Structure formats: structure tokens, C-alpha cells
């Protein structure tokens, strides 16, 4: 089985889980079922992954967590790629002053540690919403994409078919849209796929620290945080979320690699 197929299958499965969470989850994720009897119960038939310290069903929380974490990651990456591509296209095609200005901005952006910015902003923000997290992660993640796109645009600019388009009298927007963009899409797509895995990790980290997805909304990160204090007594809480993160990041990695193999060598 090719990497691409495996990646698509895994990611497809994850996305399906995320979409179907409301149907698959036996209990509402925030429901505290029985603070007396069901706190920190080990996995059983009724609760396949046990319950956490607030007697919430872990399996349901994990499923909804998939939904939340994947949604955030996909939206954030879309935002990053969107902004990064626009900036990269502009800088690469225009060159000169525009290029310098944009790229120095990118350099500055890359110099600031993403997590630090996220930490500061989110810690100071009053009511963190999912939207806010998406915005922060998206707007701190576009710098790398813009560099890649710019490099591709600059090399595409000197290709003969782009020169041919200029000679034919095509206006710049048309050259960018029909000749350059389709031919730079490949590395962007690969970066995007790999990027989703990375954002899942970052979001998990932020949620773990308590400044990401606010409780009681489940995110794999905050599930780990919940499970940390009872790691020895109820290891399944933190472990299951940890495994979920690992599997997800791996799935997107494989997808990214598979896309890279599929897209690059064949279509020059």
C-alpha cells in the first residue's frame, strides 16, 4: 500500500470520527455522570476508556476532542496557507521593494517563537474561544509557507512557459493564477498536510497548559492535563489522549509524505 493511500485512509478515518462524534459518543462530553460512583473508573464495557476525575466518559471526551482538535488544526492551517500563499505570490512575483518589505516582515515573524506569542496572547485574553485559538495559530504560522511559495514563484517566473505567457500579453493576475499557482501548489499542499500535525501538537500543548481550549470543552491537550495529576492511579486518561495525538500527527505525516511522493517527481 502506498504511503499516500495509507495516509488518506488514516486521515479519512480521523476526519470521519471527528464528523461523527455526536453519533458515536455514548455520552455528552461535559456531562458529569455520577460524581460519587463513577469518578476515575477504569475502562469497562460501559465506559470503554473509563472515566476521568469528574466522572465524565473519557471515550466521548476523546471523540469530541478529535472534533475540536482537528477543526482547530484544519482551520488554522487553512488560514496560514491562505495568508502565506498570498504573501508569497506577491513577494515572489513583484520582486523589488515589495519583496523586500514582505520578506523582512516574514523574517521578523519567524524570529519570534510562535508558542511564546500564543502563550502571551492567550493568557491575557479574557474568554478564549475556539475562533481565537484558530486565529492565533493561523496568524503565527503563515511565515514559513510564504517563504516556500515565494521561492517557488521565483523559480517559476523564469520558466519559459511563464515568459511565453508574458510575450502573449497575459496580465500579471492571469499569469499568477493560471501559470504560476497551479505549478507551485504541490509543495504548498505537502506543507499544509504536515502542518496540520504540527498544529495539533501546538494546540494540545496550549490546552495542556490551560490557556488553549477552555474546559469543559474537551481537547486532547486538556484531557492530558486532567489526567496528569492522577497519572499513576488512572493512567488511561492521559495515555489515551496522548496516543490519540500521536496517531493523528503520524497520520498527517504519512499523508504529507505520500502527497510529496505523488505530486513531485511525476509532474515536473
Amino acid at each position, binding site marked *: 500500500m502506498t504511503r499516500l493511500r495509507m495516509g488518506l485512509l488514516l486521515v479519512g478515518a480521523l476526519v470521519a470520527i471527528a464528523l461523527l462524534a455526536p453519533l458515536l459518543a455514548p455520552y455528552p462530553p461535559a456531562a458529569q455522570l455520577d460524581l460519587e460512583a463513577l469518578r476515575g473508573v477504569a475502562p469497562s464495557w460501559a465506559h470503554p476508556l473509563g472515566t476521568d476525575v469528574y466522572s465524565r466518559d473519557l471515550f466521548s471526551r476523546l471523540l469530541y476532542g478529535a472534533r475540536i482538535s482537528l477543526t482547530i488544526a484544519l482551520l488554522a492551517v487553512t488560514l496560514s496557507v491562505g495568508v502565506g500563499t498570498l504573501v508569497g505570490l506577491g513577494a515572489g512575483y513583484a520582486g523589488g521593494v515589495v519583496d523586500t518589505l514582505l520578506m523582512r516582515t516574514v523574517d521578523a515573524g519567524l524570529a519570534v517563537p510562535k508558542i511564546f506569542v500564543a502563550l502571551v496572547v492567550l493568557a491575557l485574553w479574557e474568554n478564549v474561544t475556539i475562533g481565537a485559538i484558530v486565529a492565533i495559530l493561523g496568524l503565527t504560522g503563515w511565515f514559513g509557507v510564504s517563504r516556500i511559495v515565494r521561492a517557488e514563484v521565483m523559480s517559476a517566473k523564469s520558466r519559459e512557459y511563464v515568459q511565453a505567457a508574458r*510575450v*502573449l500579453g497575459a496580465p500579471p493576475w492571469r499569469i499568477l493564477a493560471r501559470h504560476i499557482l497551479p505549478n507551485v501548489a504541490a509543495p504548498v499542499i505537502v506543507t499544509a498536510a504536515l502542518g496540520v500535525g504540527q498544529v495539533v501538537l501546538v494546540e494540545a500543548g496550549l490546552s495542556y497548559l490551560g490557556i488553549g481550549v477552555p474546559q469543559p470543552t474537551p481537547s486532547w491537550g486538556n484531557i492530558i492535563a486532567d489526567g496528569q495529576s492522577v497519572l499513576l492511579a488512572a493512567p488511561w486518561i492521559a495515555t489515551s489522549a496522548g496516543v490519540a495525538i500521536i496517531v493523528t500527527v503520524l497520520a498527517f505525516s504519512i499523508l504529507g509524505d505520500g502527497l510529496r511522493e505523488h505530486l513531485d517527481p511525476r509532474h515536473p
Partner: protein
Amino acid sequence: MTGPLLAVEGLTKRYPVDRGPLRKPAALLAVDGVSLTVGRGETLALVGESGSGKTTVARCLMRLAEPDAGRVAFGGVDVLALEGTALRAFRRRMQMVFQDPYGSLNPRMRVGSAVREPLEIHGLARGAEAEERTVALFREVGLDPAYRKAFPHELSGGQRQRVGIARALAVGPEFLVLDEPVSALDVSVQAQVLALLRELQERRGLTYLFIAHDLAVVRQMATRVAVMYLGKIVEEGPADRVFAGALHPYTWSLLSAVPVPDPDAQRKRIVLEGDPPSPVDPPPGCPFHPRCPHPEKTDRCRADLPLLRESEPGRTAACHYARPRPGL
């Protein structure tokens, strides 16, 4: 309209060459004061090896690169001064066919769309009419219109080059700049494409600037020939006269270096020493003198730059001792 269709005067183009952080950048003189004219219906061949500047001349004419000096007049219009809509309108009169039949086509665009694109860009036709005209263009260049749906990598080199020609013809130009249009093709395909180009020239009344390094190919196509070396024209004249008796020693060498498919051809081949020098550090005096095989070469060649001068009516050469090759 009298006068040449294309008149180029003193065209000059420099590229800065980075020489590291401690030295001032040098200027690579890719094209140095090139002047030429092409009459309507003619084919002027611009011949030279790598570093001669012929491709840069083509790029300047097509405004892909902006020259540093010189005038380019097409049908009386100052090409270098055009901008915006006027520049776009000019593109309908003068088009270009590129050397690399693969690189000059967008690999992700079907070839039918590539040929149709200029019609859309210039608003010449839309929808069904554009499609009809595309079909006609395909037929005109000898391609089965069924190939419109193909991608470049599915076609052979010869077919791709035909697509390139069809694309250039879509806007109905009067003048085509052909940048080594057959260099990347096999011999039998070359012959087909050259025949096509001649046929198109007659049928559409086209004028060609044919850029090439292969003199045997040039001989089949050119009415006049201009030979370039290190950014300058060193010889120019009617093709048959230049081929019969070249006046500049570089042209002698070029002609004698062309391999002829005849083992008996007792050719006293002139084999030049060294490689074509880089245009960054041209030697003083005549740029060709270090490699020049002229038997009458003197010190004057080392010191004095020979200018392009008429040596016979209608022929020019940039040599102090211009003459046909001795001993032939």
C-alpha cells in the same frame, strides 16, 4: 509602407555580475550596440554560439528584458516606449516561438487551452468561436485537433513545437521571433518543422527573425544572415553571399566547424583554440583576436576595436582585414 518592418539601432543590454562583497559588481555586456533591420517577408537569421547575445537580443525585442540603450522600431512604432494597452496591442503584431518545446508549455495546461489562451487574453474570440479557431490553428500546423485535450508531456517534441507555433500564430502576428525553434528536435522532425515554417511564411506573409547556432539549418531558411560574437554583430549580409564567401574569420570558423554528413569532404577544418570567452572580461581591441585564425592578423587587432563596416555593397563585417577565407 516602405522601409524595413523591424529596425533595431544600438541595442545594448548589461547584466550586473556579482563579484563578492568586497568588489564592485562588474557589468556583463550581453548585447553591445547591435543594429539590424528586417524587411517585410524576409527571414533574418541571427547566428552565434553561447555568450553571443543572440537570445538576449530576442528577449529585448519582445520586451521580456529591458535594454539599457538603443531603439527598436516596428512598423515605425517605437517598441521600447510602449506600455500597458499599447504594449499589449503590439504583442498581436509580433510573437515568439521558444526553443524548448517542453519548457515553453505549461505542464499543467492542456495544449488546446494553451493555444486558445491568447485569443482570450486579447478578446479576439470566446467560447465556441474560440474553440473553432483553435481547431483551425491545430490543423494549420499539422496537428490532429483531437490532441487539444492532451497535456504537453503526452506529446512528442515535434508535436509540442507545433503547439508552440500555433499558439504564437493565434493572434495573427506579422512578425515571428523564432528562438532556436528546431535545436531540440531530431533530424527528421527538424525537417518537418522547418518545412512547416516556410509554408506558414508564404501562406501568411510572415517575417521571421530566426535565431540559431546551426548554420546548416540557417542555410535552408534565411534570406539574410547576421553573425554575433560576444554581444556584437561581426558580419551581416545576404545568406547566399555569406555562405559562399564569409568575410569575417569567426564566420569562417563557424562554417568550417559544422559537421557534414560526407566522410570524403576534405574539409580543412579551422579548429579554434580555447572556448568562447565570457562576456564579463572582454579583451581589448577586437574581441575575437585571441582565437582568430586569420593569417593576416596583426597587432592592430589587439589594440583597435574593428567597427562593423560595409566591405561590399550590402554586406558588412567587423574586421580590419575582412576578406573571404584564403585557400578555399
